[in-house]
């Protein structure tokens, strides 16, 4: 899957499921501080990643994922 497809899929679920403002979804937006993603939103992200991309997020792998751009890269690596 190309990075652009990953970006579109992630943006779609962030807007539809977590009701984030699309304009805020910049690559350098920080998940917690800028987008306000809290622990319950992470539940959505874990479930949706499994459903849309077919893999399970591991906590140790998410330690360094702070921004949306890093999250796209993480998904890309997992699918790569």
């Amino acid at each position, binding site marked *: 899957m190309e990075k652009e497809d990953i970006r579109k899929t992630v943006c779609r679920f962030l807007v539809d499921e977590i009701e984030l403002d699309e304009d805020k979804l910049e690559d350098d937006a920080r998940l917690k501080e800028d987008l306000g993603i809290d622990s*319950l939103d992470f*539940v959505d992200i*874990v479930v949706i990643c499994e459903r849309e991309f077919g893999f399970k997020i591991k*906590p140790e792998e*998410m330690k360094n994922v702070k921004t949306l751009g890093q999250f796209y890269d993480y998904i890309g690596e997992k699918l790569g």
Partner: protein
Amino acid sequence: MSDGGTRWQGQTGGGSFGIRAVSYLVKNFGASFVYFFMAFAIPFYVFSKNGGRRAVFDFYRNRMGFGRWKAFRSLWGCYYCFGKIVVDKFASYGGATGRYELEMDEAASAVQKEIHASGDGAIIISAHVGNLEALGTLFSQHDKECFCTVYGGEHEEILKKRAEALKANHIHLIPVGEDTDYLFEINNALDEGGVILMMADRMTEGARGLWCSLFGKETEIPAGAFALSVKMDVPIYTAFVMRTGHCRYKVFWEKVDLQDADSSDKDRMVARAGVFCGRLEEIVRRYPLQWFNFYDFWK
């Protein structure tokens, strides 16, 4: 106990010395001895925890609708009952009185069998009433792994004692902190068919909540357990374990069975929370002295 604020502060009262002292006395002199002497310590707790005292009295007066005298007696009864349950817990930790004696009716037994027979994950929710830890006895008799979420900022001594006592019962503790690691642990546990045990009544700072009616007044309870059940599509059960005698408890166990697959996630969460609050109210009306939220729950 909390210090009587409007949000749960996250630590059991008593301090390390108190915890060690109770542990030592129960181990060496038995639970009955400690029950007796504990009666003399109750005034200290009632009078030193001003906010807690007021909140508990107001609960009996305004929410339970008791008269002034009955509310006053219930306030003392509540603190004494809480003390006895703490002693029961330490007796159980030290093995001084063996396991808890649990009583269940047929419906609760059927729920227990259903949970243990199922290969799928499940969430069991409860509240700060009675003694949920006694439920661990039921998990010791089966291979089903149970994961209990606990507040990560709790006294180290309490967490250590709980972890030691519960390990043999197939119960593991998941400390809930500010990072999201605990969510991954919960997710993994549910995927592997484990049971998650969560308290669903106390709001902590920063938690997302759902508004529900409890004892005739709207209050906010944490959304976590209900969100997990809906998002991860796992069944949710309510469990209350109420004290009926020395280390003797009755288990009230029921599934939250709602046919609402077509509703929105938010509506499904609110409906589950409503069922939980209804059952919590019912159990507290039956065992009014076992309400252990020592702060203004409705603020």
